């Protein structure tokens, strides 16, 4: 690094930094910037049901998951029971089970339990992607750097969203209400282009969800419970009718799939 007299720009220096913490941070900052914009729309949704700026910050800092947090916002606004909430969070975050299993294989056999316990905290789709993409055994310090470069931005984005929802003129904050749904569409529609089963599952989900919200029998159930029941029924039916081929762990990348 630099012995041959070549001038090094600050960017290079960071790039060649041996310190894995800084490498992780550098790799995660683009992810963090994307996170800020996405979690902003979560903040709008949270603010709409009365979360304070600090509660929004805490929600995102401790949960670090967009669909799980959104489901939690909806259910907490309905004062849902905790068993129902636990089930809904499990369903919304079920894919983290798969990622966690996959990443588990990348831990060196000598890695400590402490590292497993702390890295589990920040396992989002994108940070999982960074961990899987790094060569060799997973370097915990690299992951901590990645967390440090992105998770604070995720939490700040939500806080900022709550604040913006409160201070912006009504006409703007009403428009921002649909941002979270735009984000969900951007996650579920593109994979449907490649996989007709996913597309079919999405369309059936739209239709049954609409039906369940208008039929007298199901419309009286809270929307959180409806989401939970519909998800389990539809996903089970699709899994039975169109099981995945028996290949080694299929990776899922859904949430906030912006390019970094």
């Amino acid at each position: 690094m630099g012995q041959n007299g070549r001038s090094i720009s600050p960017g290079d220096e960071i790039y060649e930094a041996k310190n894995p913490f800084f490498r992780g941070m550098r790799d995660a900052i683009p992810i963090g910037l994307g996170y800020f914009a996405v979690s902003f729309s979560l903040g709008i949704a949270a603010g709409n049901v009365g979360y304070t700026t600090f509660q929004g910050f805490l929600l995102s800092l401790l949960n670090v998951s967009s669909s799980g947090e959104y489901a939690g916002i909806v259910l907490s606004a309905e004062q849902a029971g905790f068993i129902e909430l636990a089930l809904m969070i499990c369903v919304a975050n079920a894919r983290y089970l798969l990622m966690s299993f996959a990443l588990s294989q990348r831990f060196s056999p000598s890695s400590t339990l402490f590292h497993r316990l702390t890295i589990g905290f920040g396992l989002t789709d994108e940070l999982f992607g960074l961990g899987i993409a790094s060569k060799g055994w997973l370097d915990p310090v690299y992951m901590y750097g990645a967390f440090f470069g992105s998770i604070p931005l995720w939490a700040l984005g939500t806080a900022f969203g709550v604040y913006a929802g409160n201070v912006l003129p009504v006409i703007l904050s009403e428009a921002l209400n649909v941002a979270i749904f735009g984000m969900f569409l951007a996650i579920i529609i593109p994979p449907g282009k490649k996989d007709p089963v996913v597309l079919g599952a999405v369309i059936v989900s739209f239709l049954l969800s609409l039906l369940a919200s208008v039929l007298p029998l199901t419309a009286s159930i809270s929307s959180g419970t409806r989401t939970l029941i519909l998800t389990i029924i539809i996903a089970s039916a699709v899994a039975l009718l169109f099981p995945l081929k028996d290949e080694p762990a299929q990776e899922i990348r859904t949430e906030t799939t912006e390019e970094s």
Partner: protein
Amino acid sequence: MKHSYYTYIIFMALVTYLIRVLPLTLLRKPITNRFFRSFLYYVPYVTLAVMTFPAILTSTSSLLYGGAAFIVGIILAWFSGNLFVVEVGCCVVVLLMNTLIH
């Protein structure tokens, strides 16, 4: 009894953490059950679809605005696939309709 949002936030965080950390610690063997793997694969798409529609319709002051945002969102997601394009596009539709119709 009304629960505070803080209680909900802490509870959610615990459940989310357990999902992420159990396979890294206690259950280190990969999931082999084909049905369960398939179920986990489809769940995110299904649950996000269910949460999006028809909730998007009632998120704005008129079903019409939310409906327009839904359709534009699907078209943008299909053709561009970029998260920001879709998000901003949906918001702009609602803003425009709100401005034009009033």
